[in-house]
């Protein structure tokens, strides 16, 4: 079963780098999300794996097969790479019925008529779209089109399934539903999924590994919870999580074997989780909203700037000095605007970033 390997992949248009020196291994049966803002090179990467885009330099392997090698001039066309691809706009052929759309790939592979019929029926049943087989794409809804696109792609049993923002054209409720289906599909089909999205929540909930990109380079390639809890740098920390991580400017000084931090007008001690070296001077301290605890015995005094209850949880924007800090508490609770509160920064996942935005340490903050 296939493992996808990208070695030193670069895609350049003139002076513009779409993807820059990218190295990545996608293990068999992984569900990898390429995550990032628009223009970060994620779709280009996906299209290069499929063979729809030709890299300027590098090597791509799918399974044991080298499908692209710029030095040796190897470049297999998409139909020989044994991949499935689901396009953002589904790319269903408007002049073919649902049935014909799904059967197309099998016909290309010169399957027997009966076999084709059996397989198409199977796919229709799997995606629960049996009743639409005679309709044209323009006559079914977006969600149904999406299912047809998946059925069409899976019909030829590709070893790798590549998806380019497949859920972005669906409404919110349908998107949630399809997320569940996709995860289920991944478990059922035993194939490798590569998934492009700009929605961090989608990447978090679906994938086994997230590859976060920025301007054509990888920022972090790790399982979702690791990306969430231990971001490599400020960019990753900021991109993942909603509401996003709190960042405050602070100053660290080492005195003896202890680290003294001044932030938000308070003094605190920073206890790193692991031994660290050379953190000194101006830093950015980051902590997730769920670690901003509201507690009567809290050391920090704050006023409520505004409250955003969603039912399941409540986001409270707190004003501490001149900074606005988010805090999330479970359940519905309401606070009066401008109410005075006490709070604390809890947990051992407080991140310290240096001036360049690189994470230099993680640990606990003890406010004095």
């Amino acid at each position: 079963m296939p493992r996808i390997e990208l070695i030193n992949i670069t895609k350049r248009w003139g002076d513009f780098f779409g993807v820059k020196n990218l190295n990545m291994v996608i293990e068999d049966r992984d569900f990898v999300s390429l995550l990032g803002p628009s223009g970060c090179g994620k779709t280009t990467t996906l299209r290069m794996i499929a063979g729809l885009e030709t890299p300027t330099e590098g090597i791509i392997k799918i399974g044991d097969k080298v499908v692209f090698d710029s030095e040796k001039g190897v470049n297999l066309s998409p139909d020989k790479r044994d991949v499935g691809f689901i396009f953002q706009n589904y790319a269903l052929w408007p002049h073919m019925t649902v049935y014909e759309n799904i059967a197309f790939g099998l016909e290309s592979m010169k399957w027997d008529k009966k076999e084709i019929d059996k397989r198409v029926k199977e796919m229709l049943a799997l995606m629960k779209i049996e009743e639409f087989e005679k309709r044209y794409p323009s006559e079914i809804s977006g969600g149904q089109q999406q299912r047809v696109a998946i059925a069409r792609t899976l019909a030829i049993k590709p070893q790798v399934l590549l998806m380019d923002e497949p859920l972005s054209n669906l409404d919110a409720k349908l998107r949630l539903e399809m997320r569940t289906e996709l995860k289920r599909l991944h478990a059922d089909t035993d194939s490798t999924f590569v998934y492009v999205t700009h929605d961090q929540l989608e990447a978090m909930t679906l994938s086994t590994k997230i590859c976060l990109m920025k301007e054509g380079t990888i920022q972090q390639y790790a399982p979702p919870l690791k990306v969430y809890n231990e971001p490599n740098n400020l960019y990753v920390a900021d991109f993942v999580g909603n509401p996003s991580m709190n960042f405050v400017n602070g100053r660290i000084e080492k005195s003896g074997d202890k680290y003294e931090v001044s932030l938000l007008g308070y003094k605190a001690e920073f206890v790193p989780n692991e031994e660290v070296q050379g953190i000194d001077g101006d830093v950015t301290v980051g902590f997730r909203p769920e670690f901003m605890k509201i507690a009567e015995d809290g050391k920090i005094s704050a006023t409520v700037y505004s409250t955003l209850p969603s039912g399941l949880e409540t986001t409270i924007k707190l004003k501490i000095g001149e900074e606005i800090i988010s805090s999330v508490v479970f359940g519905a609770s309401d606070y009066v605007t401008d109410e005075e509160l006490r709070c604390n920064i809890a947990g051992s996942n407080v991140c310290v970033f240096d001036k360049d935005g690189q994470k230099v340490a993680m640990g606990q903050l003890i406010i004095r």
Partner: protein
Amino acid sequence: MKAINLEKIKNRIKTYFSNPANCMLVFFFCVFLGLSIYPITAMIKEMFVVHAGIEKTLITAKKGSFTLYHVQKLFIPSEWSVTSFYIPFKNSFLLGLFGAILAIIFGGVTAWLMTRSNLVHKKIIGTLFMFPYLMPAWTLAQFWIYLFQNSNVMSGNKGIMQSLFGICMPQWFVYGLFPCVIVNSLHFAPFAYILIGGILQNMDATLEESAQILKANRLRIVRKVTLPIVMPALLSTFLLVFSSGFASYAVPVFLGGAVRFYTLASKMKAMINAGYMGQAYIIAAVMILCGIIILMINQKYTNKRRSFTTVTGKSGQVSLVNLKKANRPISIAMIILTVCFSVVPLIVFALQTIQRVPGDYSVSNWTLDFWIGKDLDAYKMGMVGGILVGQDFLMALLRLVLLSLACSAFAGTAGLFIGYSVVRNRRTRLSKMVEAMSFFPYLIPTIAFAAIYLALASTKTFSFLYNSFALLVLVGGVKYLPFASRGCINSMLQVSSEIEEAAILMNVPWYKRIFRILVPIQKTSIFSGYLLPIVSAMREVDLFALIVANSRYMLTTMLLAFNQTGYDQYASAITLLIIVIVLVINQVSSKLTGASISQSVGSYNKQ
């Protein structure tokens, strides 16, 4: 009770007309009704009455009395009807059919190469390929004659092929259906190229990519995906080109006159000249009917349920087909071919104008007399000398330019208001009708269109239009309206109504909304709406040939007269000037405003 109802109706009408878009819509509806229904009824009447002249003596009835003579004479099989109707009809049909097929093949292949492959030198091929469309169709016909005429056929003048290479082509190759088909297809290939290229460019590339991923080979993708998707548009391109070829007049006159090859259009003109007015109008009616049938076929086919609907989403980066080794040869072949029908004709025309004796290409025969000479006894034809000497030519040029500008102002402005009122009333029945009616003039063959208005001007009520500049402007303006209004409708559709609504809330009057907000936003496409009528009018022969009585009146009619009397040097000089003016206008406007002919034609296809 009754009083209240009346009040209600009165208020409704008041509300309806308080919206300027509604007023315009009603206005254009009435104008179109007048401009199409009235002339057509006038024409139908002409089909059944006795006219002065030859008809009166043949039928021996009073002028103006009712008769079925014309219908019987033209349709009941006889030697007369075969030569005057059935054969020209067959010729028109074949010319339209083969011309369209060739144009689509030539234009379609080029469009595919330009949009879907990595062909080199695309820019120069694209520019040159447009030339034949910018040139009047008859210039290519003229070019064909200069190239292939030889001492073995008809007039016996030597053409370039004979003079330089001693090649003599047979008569069927030089005159008649074959060269007409070739010339028409060359002229309309760029048209097909723009339309098909537009479809290919707008067509979502992922549709083809997904087929490739599903293991279909190149041929299967073209056959099963690309072709079926572009088919409706291809068909409508075919029908548009077919109807233009079917109705073409000038090309058959140039290439067919010598061998008595007639199409419906050229036969009709001959009938009018010979005084068979009734039969001429019947031919015009037949042509109009064919145009309407073509439109109906087009509508029916494009309204199918599986018609090409763009599914939302970005049309991704297109991966171009690698032509590999064939790239350079194809590119060079394309360049040679396009040069043959763009630059070479210009050179040939230039050479023609400096020959003392036509057909002699030796340097000793060169003269500038036909440009600037004075007192050319033999070639004078009423001219004082070369065409740059004396006022006749300059006046004719001036009139042509004035006419083009006036037609453009008429068509472009009307198109702007039609676009605005149609789009703002989208989905109402009246709006659909006005949109369809504004397209109607396109379907009427040019020469039949001219005949309609000629008939209109012959009626007592409109006799003041007869032989007037105003009639020319009216005819030209209405004829070119379809392009302008279609373009404006498309551009108005792209501006969301909120932009205008924001201004309505601030109490900005409607004319300010149009000219201060909508027009600046869509200035390029609106300018294209003005550009195409200018260029079309500049090179129009079919439309004005019938209406202009005095051939000295306008440059194009002057050209036709020179050509028919064999003054090739004058004719070539005028042709050359017209082509150059058209090319310059197109280049300048595309540089200055970004509007170009290809864009104007392209807007035709997006519905």
